[in-house]
């Protein structure tokens, strides 16, 4: 059964290679190939997760070479995120069929779908990688395709945002590669478990601290943590909506999941360096929450607003991790998964609105609630989820992180977290106000029809998942429990 593990990542990549060749004249064929690849990944991910739940984490030696020599793929609690990745991808691909017809010129569409599949393969491979350099390669796969996807929609702002994103991403990748080089020079092998064991044995000081610093900085740029987030808003706002959903929901989590993946390596490090990193992350996370929420207050463009709320939500996750407390870590890891669901709902719904009406600012989108009731319903559910009202998925993360903050004896973070939640709600009230309680400002709004079914169904399904993810939050939490235990400070 575990032979499926490498195929989960290879299938989409192979499909990506085939897409332009097959879809030469007919982009629909490339789209079909994409949907099949995403469905295959989802099926494989579900089977692998079932095996994970039954028999615990397992790994797979690629090419039959034993662990330190060959590449080892590791499927543990963290890589259970593949289910979320594949599911969201499947829905986004179904959604983007009608969207791409309008947004992407015909002759580039088969390349666009090929890039989407490369991105999917990169993400899935990244999440299951158990080897440092393999982690880097798949991170690059996902990143290169994300840079180009931002610019896929064409337009001046998109190209500029894509280049800024590329420069930030490339610098962080180089930093990560440098740290991997340092770790390789220190221990001689690249397998994460092996490096961790040998680092604990040799107990090197300064180089290991340098590697930790480099990796943390690199991953935090990828995750757009507060001071390093300047590239995110333009990139996520100017990208085509299905791509923004993938960027904000999934690609941003690369930084977090990557950091969690390499953390056990440094558990042997003496506590001073590790403690300092945690403290810095906790404070940066808290600041990110407030700054992201504040910045979003002054935005008019709905997608910019959502992009800044991503910065704020990443702040939650990093704060949860920075507290180095099992309860807060549970909250952070669960919020990674829930945030992916919520943010893709919001971006897809906003995309449907922009696709149908052509307007992007709140002022022009007034009265959308009457004209496109179902899309606005999904968006409202997403809004309630991102604010973290109890029954929805967003609440779980905030609840556990706040609780963890208190149990770790840092009430000031709990207060910062709740203040952030309050701020987030204010700029979402502006959205709800504009949709439901304002007369349309543009007369064209009255003639707008509801989004087509192929765009509406994925959005509604994701909205339902947001609520269900909240109500049945127990499963992801139990799934992530073993991961949280081995995090430092794990009770």
């Amino acid at each position, binding site marked *: 059964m575990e032979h499926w593990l490498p195929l989960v990542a290879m299938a989409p990549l192979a499909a990506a290679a085939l897409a332009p060749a097959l879809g030469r004249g007919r982009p629909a064929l490339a789209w079909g190939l994409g949907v099949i690849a995403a469905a295959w990944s989802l099926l494989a991910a579900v089977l692998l997760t079932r095996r994970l739940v039954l028999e615990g984490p397992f790994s797979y030696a690629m090419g039959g070479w034993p662990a330190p020599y060959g590449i080892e793929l590791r499927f543990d609690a963290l890589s259970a995120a593949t289910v979320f990745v594949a599911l969201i991808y499947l829905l986004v691909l179904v959604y983007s069929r009608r969207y791409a017809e309008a947004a992407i010129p015909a002759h580039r569409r088969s390349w666009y779908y090929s890039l989407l599949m490369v991105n999917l393969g990169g993400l899935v491979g990244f999440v299951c990688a158990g080897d440092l*350099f393999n982690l880097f*390669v798949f991170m*690059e796969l996902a990143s*290169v395709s994300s*840079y*180009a996807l931002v*610019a896929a929609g064409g*337009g*001046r*702002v998109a*190209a*500029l945002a*894509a*280049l800024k994103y*590329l*420069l930030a991403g*490339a*610098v962080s*990748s*180089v930093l990560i*590669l*440098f740290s991997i*080089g340092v770790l*390789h*020079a220190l221990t001689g092998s*690249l397998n994460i478990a092996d490096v961790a064991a040998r680092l604990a044995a040799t107990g090197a000081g300064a180089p290991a601290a340098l590697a930790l610093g480099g990796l943390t900085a690199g991953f935090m740029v990828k995750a757009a943590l507060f001071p390093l987030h300047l590239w995110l808003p*333009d990139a996520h706002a100017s990208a085509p909506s299905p791509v923004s959903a993938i960027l904000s929901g999934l690609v941003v989590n690369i930084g977090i999941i990557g950091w969690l993946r390499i953390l056990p390596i440094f558990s042997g490090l003496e506590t001073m360096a590790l403690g300092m990193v945690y403290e810095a992350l906790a404070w940066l996370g808290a600041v990110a929450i407030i700054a992201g929420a504040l910045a979003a207050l002054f935005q008019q463009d709905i997608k910019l607003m959502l992009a800044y709320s991503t910065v704020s939500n990443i702040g939650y996750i990093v704060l949860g991790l920075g507290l180095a407390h099992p309860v807060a870590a549970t909250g952070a890891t669960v919020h990674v998964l829930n945030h992916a669901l919520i943010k893709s709902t919001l971006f897809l719904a906003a995309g449907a609105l922009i696709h149908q009406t052509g307007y992007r600012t709140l002022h022009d989108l007034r009265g959308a609630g009457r004209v496109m009731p179902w899309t606005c319903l999904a968006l409202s559910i997403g809004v309630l989820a991102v604010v973290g009202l109890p029954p929805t998925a967003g609440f779980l993360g905030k609840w556990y992180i706040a609780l963890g903050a208190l149990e770790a004896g840092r009430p000031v973070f709990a207060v910062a977290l709740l203040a952030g939640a309050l701020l987030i709600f204010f700029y979402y009230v502006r959205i709800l106000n504009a949709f439901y309680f304002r007369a349309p400002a543009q007369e064209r709004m009255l003639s707008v029809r509801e989004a087509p079914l192929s765009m509406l169904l994925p959005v509604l399904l994701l909205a339902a998942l947001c609520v269900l993810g909240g109500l049945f939050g127990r499963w992801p939490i139990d799934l992530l429990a073993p991961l949280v235990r081995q995090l430092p400070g794990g009770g």
Partner: protein
Amino acid sequence: MPSGLQNLDYAAFVVLFCIGLYMVLARSNLVKKLLGLNIMETAVFAFIVTSGMVDDGTAPILGNGVAGPFASPLPHALILTGIVVAVSITALALALIVEIHRQCGTIEADELKGAE
């Protein structure tokens, strides 16, 4: 701990890395930023390859009669992949710069900042 002086070539790579970083951050011409990025990448590749070196070792290719300590093949393989990744990013960056030039007429970041 080995004495400070003999890791001089590592120090050189670090300096090269910082020069590249400075170019990326400080220069306003987009192509120069890209050059800075390439310099950073070269510095890291050189660092990783040098870490695999062994005193008077030969290339890790087993022919008949070739003996003596072999340099470690692993870093060389890593760097090959690294170079391909660097090439891909540079190709995409150049494509984007061409697109920006076609759309905005200039590739100076300062002027572009206003144009957004």
